[in-house]
C-alpha cells in the first residue's frame, strides 16, 4: 500500500496517562496531516472512543502547543475492546469512519488488545508508553524518563531531611512487577539501597547494610523501594495484593509494612515517603518528548508501509519496529544493571 492510497487514520491513547503522550500525538498528526495529507481522527478516552465511535478530527492546528503538556489530550479509560463488541465492533467503527488504520499508544494492556486485533486482521500499529518501562521489545517507553527524573528529584530532596534527622528514609516508587524506576532513580539519586522485585530481599540483610553504614559514620540512609519489591522466600510474609479488573496485582504499601520492621531491627528512626501519582504527572523531560516524537513519526511510517501488527520501538538507541505480539510481555531489570547499583550499597 502506498501513501497516496491512504486518506484517513485513527489514533488513541489507552491505560494510565504519562508525560509524553501529547508529544506522540502531535508527531503523528504533523507527519500524517501536515506532510502526507492523511486525515487523523482522535478517539476519545482510549478503547471507549474506539468502540463507541467517539472521535474528534486532529489537525496540525489543533495539536499546536501540546508538546510540553503532560497527560493526554485524548483522555483514557480502562475499557477493554474485547468486552465491548470485540474485533467486529472495532472493524465496523473503523470502516464507518473511513479510518484505514489505527495507531494505539499504550502499555501492556492496550498493546495486548492491539496485538489481538492485529492477528484478527485489523490494521493496527502500536506505540509503547508506560512509566514502568516494563515492556519487552523496546529499551524505553514513553513516560519512563520523566518518572525517573521526578523520583530522582525526590531522592535529592529527601537527603536533606534524612540527614538532618539522622534517619532512614524509605521512598516507594511505582513500577509494578519490575524495578526500572527504582533502579534508575536509585542510581541517579545515590540511594544507599534499592529493593526491586527482580531481586527478592531479606530484611535482615537490608538492616545489616544499614547498620554497617552507621558504623562507618553515616547516620542516615536512603532506600528506594519498588512497589513490587518482594521479600525472599521464607523471610517476610506479604499478604496478597488486591487484583485489578485484568487480574494484575494492585501494588502499593510494602514500604509501610517494612518500615516498622527496619526500625525495630536497627533501632534507627525510619520514615516512609510514597511518591504515587506525581510520578506520572507534570511536564515530560526532553528525553521523553524526543522519544515520543520519534515513535510518532515511526508509527506513521509503519502505517504507510502497511506493516500491520508492528510496534515502534527503540533498541540500542535506534528506532526499530517489532511485532506487537512479542512486545507486550513484562521485561525485568537485567542482572548486570542491578550489579552496577550494588557497587554503591556497601560503602
Amino acid at each position, binding site marked *: 500500500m502506498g501513501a497516496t492510497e491512504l486518506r484517513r487514520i485513527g489514533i488513541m*491513547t489507552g491505560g*494510565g*496517562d504519562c*508525560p509524553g*503522550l501529547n508529544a506522540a500525538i502531535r508527531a503523528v498528526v504533523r507527519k500524517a496531516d501536515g506532510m502526507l495529507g492523511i486525515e487523523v481522527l482522535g478517539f476519545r*478516552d482510549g478503547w471507549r472512543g474506539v468502540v463507541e465511535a467517539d472521535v474528534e478530527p486532529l489537525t496540525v492546528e489543533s495539536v499546536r502547543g501540546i508538546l510540553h*503538556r*503532560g*497527560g*493526554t489530550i485524548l*483522555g*483514557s*479509560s480502562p475499557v477493554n475492546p474485547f468486552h465491548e463488541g470485540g474485533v467486529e465492533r472495532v472493524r465496523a467503527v473503523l470502516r464507518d469512519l473511513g479510518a484505514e488504520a489505527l495507531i494505539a499508544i499504550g502499555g501492556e494492556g492496550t498493546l495486548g488488545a492491539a496485538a489481538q486485533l492485529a492477528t484478527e486482521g485489523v490494521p493496527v500499529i502500536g506505540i509503547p508508553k508506560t512509566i514502568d518501562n516494563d515492556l519487552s521489545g523496546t529499551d524505553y517507553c514513553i513516560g519512563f524518563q520523566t518518572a525517573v527524573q521526578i523520583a530522582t528529584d*525526590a531522592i*535529592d*530532596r*529527601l*537527603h*536533606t*531531611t534524612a*540527614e*538532618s*534527622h*539522622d534517619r532512614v*528514609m524509605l521512598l516507594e516508587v511505582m513500577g509494578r512487577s519490575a524495578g526500572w524506576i527504582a533502579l534508575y532513580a536509585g542510581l541517579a539519586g545515590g540511594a544507599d539501597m534499592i529493593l526491586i522485585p527482580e531481586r527478592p530481599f531479606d530484611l535482615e540483610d537490608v538492616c545489616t547494610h544499614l547498620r554497617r553504614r552507621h558504623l562507618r559514620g553515616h*547516620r542516615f540512609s536512603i532506600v528506594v523501594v519498588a512497589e513490587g519489591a518482594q521479600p525472599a522466600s521464607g523471610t517476610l510474609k*506479604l*499478604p*496478597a*495484593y*488486591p487484583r485489578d479488573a485484568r487480574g494484575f496485582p494492585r501494588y*502499593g*504499601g*510494602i514500604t*509501610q*509494612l517494612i518500615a516498622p520492621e527496619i526500625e525495630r531491627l536497627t533501632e534507627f528512626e525510619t*520514615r*516512609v*515517603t*510514597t511518591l*504515587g*501519582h*506525581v510520578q*506520572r*504527572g*507534570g511536564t515530560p523531560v526532553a528525553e521523553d518528548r524526543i522519544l515520543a516524537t520519534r515513535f510518532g513519526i515511526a508509527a506513521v511510517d509503519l502505517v504507510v508501509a502497511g506493516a500491520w501488527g508492528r510496534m515502534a520501538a527503540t533498541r540500542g538507541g535506534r528506532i526499530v519496529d517489532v511485532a506487537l505480539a512479542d512486545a507486550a510481555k513484562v521485561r525485568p531489570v537485567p542482572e548486570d544493571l542491578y550489579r552496577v547499583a550494588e557497587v554503591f550499597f556497601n560503602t
Partner: protein
Amino acid sequence: MKIGILTGGGDVPGLNASIKAATNRLSEEGHTALGIRRGWAGLLECNPDDPGSTERCTTPLNPAVVRTIDRSGGTVLHTSRTNPAKVKPADEPEFLREGRQDDGPRDHTAHTLKVIERLGIDALIPIGGDDTLSFALRLHDEGVPVVAIPKTMDNDVHGTDYCIGFSTAVTRAVDAVNQLRSSAGSHERLAVVEVFGRYSGETSLISAYLSGAERGIIAEVPFDIEKLAMLLTQDREANPSRYAMMTISEGATMVGGEMVVGGKEDAFGHRKLGGIGQLTAEMLKEITGLEIIYQELGYLMRSGSPDSLDLMVAINYAVMAADLVVGGESGRLVALRNGNYVNVPLAVTGQGVKRVDVGALYDTDSYRPKIRHVNGKPMFLY
C-alpha cells in the same frame, strides 16, 4: 560573647540560611558562634568532663564554615525532638542515668545549665517550633539569655504570623496539585491531595487558594463527606476537562467523626496508611462511583532547598536575633506581625494556639478558601 545556635524539631528548608546569617552577623560584630548539634540533645548529651562528648555535641561556626551551607535544605547542625526537661529513659545518656528510680521522664535542666556554663556560652539562639521553644523559655526563666527563631512548615507557632518553612511547603503542594492535574484530567478523576500541617489547616487553605484546587478541607472545620462528594461531582461536571482537585489537612475531621488515624485496612491489614486523606478518598469513591487519585505529600513538603521567600525570612530573622542577643535582650521571639519584622516576648508562644481565621479566610459552606478582604492586609493575608 559566645553565642550557641541550635535547630530543634522537624527540619524545614531555610534553617541553613538562618544559621549562616546569624553566624556572619555575630562574626561581623566581633562575637563567636558555636553550633550545638542535634537540637537540645546536644546540650543534654554533652558531658563537660569528657572532651570527646563535647566534640560530638558541638561544632564551631564561622564565616568560612558556613560559606556554602545556605544552598541546600535541612540543617547542618542536625536536629532532634529531645526536651531536656522531660527525658525518657531511652534518650537519657549513660552518665546521667544515676539515681533513676522508674521509667518516667526526668528533668535534666540543671545539667543543661551546667553544660551551657562549662562551654562558656553567653546566650542562645534556638531555632524551632512550639516544643523547641518551650524549653528555650525554660532556660530564659533560669537566667540564660535566649532569643528564639520560629520555624515550622505548619506555620502554627503562636505569636508570629510567619514561621520559616511554610512558603516552601506551600510551593511544593501547589506544584504537586498542578502536576497531578494531567493524570486527573486524562482519567477524568477526582484527586485528593493530603498535606502536612498537624492541627492547623493553613497549609491546606493556602495551597488550595494558590493552586486553584476546587476544594480545600482544613483541620479547623469538620466536613460532611456527602456534601463534599456532591460539590466535587459538580466541580468535575463544570470542568471542560472533567476532573476536580482538592487539598486536605492531615488533621481534618468529618462532621460527627473523631480525628481519624487510619483508613480502611489495606492489603497488609494496616490502618494507618493514609489517615484522613486515604479515608476521604475511599469514601468519595464509594459515594460517587468515580475513580480517585489519592496523594499524600508528606516529607516532600519539607525537604529540599528553600524558596526565595523562606530564604528572605530565614535570613532576616537570624540577623534580627543576632542583633537582639548582642544588644543584651533575652526571652524574645523574632516574628512577623502585620507584615512587619518585630520581636515579641517568647512567653507568648505558650499562651495560645495559632489556627486559620476561618471567619476571614474560609467559606464553611463550600469548603474552600474565601478571602473576604485583601485591601490593607499584609503580604501573607494575616
